[in-house]
């Protein structure tokens, strides 16, 4: 039973990574930049939701919606103020700016909410835990909902990107920014929309993660951010299904390492697996081979 229980925890944790990884992978796909501040948007989403439920007494689900709106706007503002002015300068400048934005968000959170860890009230407070197989198998409502949410998000996003005009425009910009402009696509708008979607999803991931692991600190987003970035690379950065597969595999490896090998070594094992995958397949599991344009 440990196996099944671990599998469910792994899928649940992996689903959180997958939802975060989407933000990395979509932003990378469209603007070829690594948005290292993405992890901290998760933390902001967590705090917004925390404050609304704790101090305003709002329903958790309404708070989640508002957190999504706040993070969506935050994503758009970050892109507009920090990254857009640097577009067309080298990728190194943007990378360093992203790290700067990450520290800015963490320190802003430290100023606003202080360093003390806050205890997050689960979105599913009061919901029953499912017990099966004579009580040996437990499925928390957090796990169940996170796994379902991940699947729904993947399906909706895949349909959006393959069927809608705006989604196809995003793919066109990902493939060839210049050619997309020659089609009449407003590249700035497409990139803005990508940041908006990624950041809105980060809020969902933040609330789901804090529901399962209820400690909220200004650095809460940093480690899951790095892990999700790893997941995106693992699955093949730029690929939406890749983010999902990478996230799930990473979550499962992490939980199984904790259960069967060593809690302390679990992160090391996760990253060792990443290195092995990249050695065998440098573009990640589902990554496409990109031929650099000269």
């Amino acid at each position, binding site marked *: 039973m440990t196996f099944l229980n671990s599998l469910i925890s792994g899928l649940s944790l992996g689903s959180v990574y997958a939802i975060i990884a989407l933000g990395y992978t979509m932003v990378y796909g469209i603007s070829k930049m690594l948005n290292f501040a993405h992890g901290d948007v998760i933390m902001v989403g967590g705090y917004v939701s925390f404050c609304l439920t704790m101090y305003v007494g709002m329903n958790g689900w309404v708070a989640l919606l508002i957190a999504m709106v706040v993070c969506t706007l935050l994503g758009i503002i970050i892109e507009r103020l920090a990254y857009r002015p640097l577009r067309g300068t080298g990728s190194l400048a943007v990378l360093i700016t992203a790290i700067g934005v990450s520290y800015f968000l963490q320190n802003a959170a430290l100023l606003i909410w202080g360093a003390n860890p806050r205890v997050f009230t689960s979105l599913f407070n009061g919901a029953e835990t499912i017990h099966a197989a004579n009580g040996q198998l437990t499925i928390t409502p957090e796990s169940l909902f996170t796994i379902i949410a991940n699947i729904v998000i993947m399906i909706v996003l895949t349909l959006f990107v393959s069927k809608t005009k705006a989604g196809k*425009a995003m793919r066109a910009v990902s493939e060839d920014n210049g*050619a997309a402009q020659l*089609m009449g696509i407003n590249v700035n708008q497409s990139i803005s929309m990508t940041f908006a979607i990624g950041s809105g999803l980060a809020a969902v991931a933040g609330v789901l993660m804090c529901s399962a692991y209820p400690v909220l600190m200004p650095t809460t987003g940093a480690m899951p951010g790095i892990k999700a970035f790893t997941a995106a690379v693992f699955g093949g950065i730029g690929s939406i299904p890749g983010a999902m597969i990478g996230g799930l595999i990473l979550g499962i490896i992490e939980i199984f390492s904790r259960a069967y090998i060593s809690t302390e070594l679990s992160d090391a094992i996760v990253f060792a697996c990443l290195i092995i995958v990249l050695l065998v397949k440098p573009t990640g599991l589902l990554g496409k081979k990109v031929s650099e344009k000269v």
Partner: protein
Amino acid sequence: MGTVLTVENINVYYGAIHAIKGISFDVNRGEIVTLIGANGAGKSTTLHTVSGLLRSKTGDIEFLESSIAHTAAHKIVSMGISHVPEGRRIFQGMTVEENLQMGAFVAKKDRIAHNLEYVYEQFPRLKERTKQIAGTLSGGEQQMLAMGRALMSDPELLMLDEPSMGLAPILVDQIFEIIQNLNKAGTTILLVEQNAQMALSVADRAYVIETGRITLSGTGEELAKSDEVRKAYLGG
């Protein structure tokens, strides 16, 4: 007649490199105008500047009597200039149909079906391959797709950059035939070519660009006969 495009004294730089040094030319309605010249002379740069992907430091570019020198590239498309870039640059990962849909990004909704029919009429080959991933098309088909995609926005002016590049002679003939057909159907064409012979044979007027400057201009026929052009571009 009437002038469709007027380019007036543009200067374009790549960092410190002065790529375009005061080029001026114009294109009249219904014409095929060609810019010929050696590799690196500035032909493609000129087209990129017209379509707004690059900016000129001086001068002006007028399209249908309004200045587009400072207009964003994506808006220039909706004003009626379509640019088929060098190397085709179709969206490799998308299907033929999706590429054409992208070409219709700024087209009016009620015109899209009509435009699509027109493109399929000009390029029947594309119609057979609507669901095929564009990256798997042959070179000639990719060129057709790039041109078809550009036509989906119903352009007043079609700019073609090296449409014959890398194609077998028989395909080059086919592409040039299509260019003439499009022109007869009412599209004004600005053509950039290294294949000067082909370009001059279809062009109403032509300009020769050398290291960022226009050195010669005249009708296609005049230039085809000119000694300088024959020596430099037509192999004697």
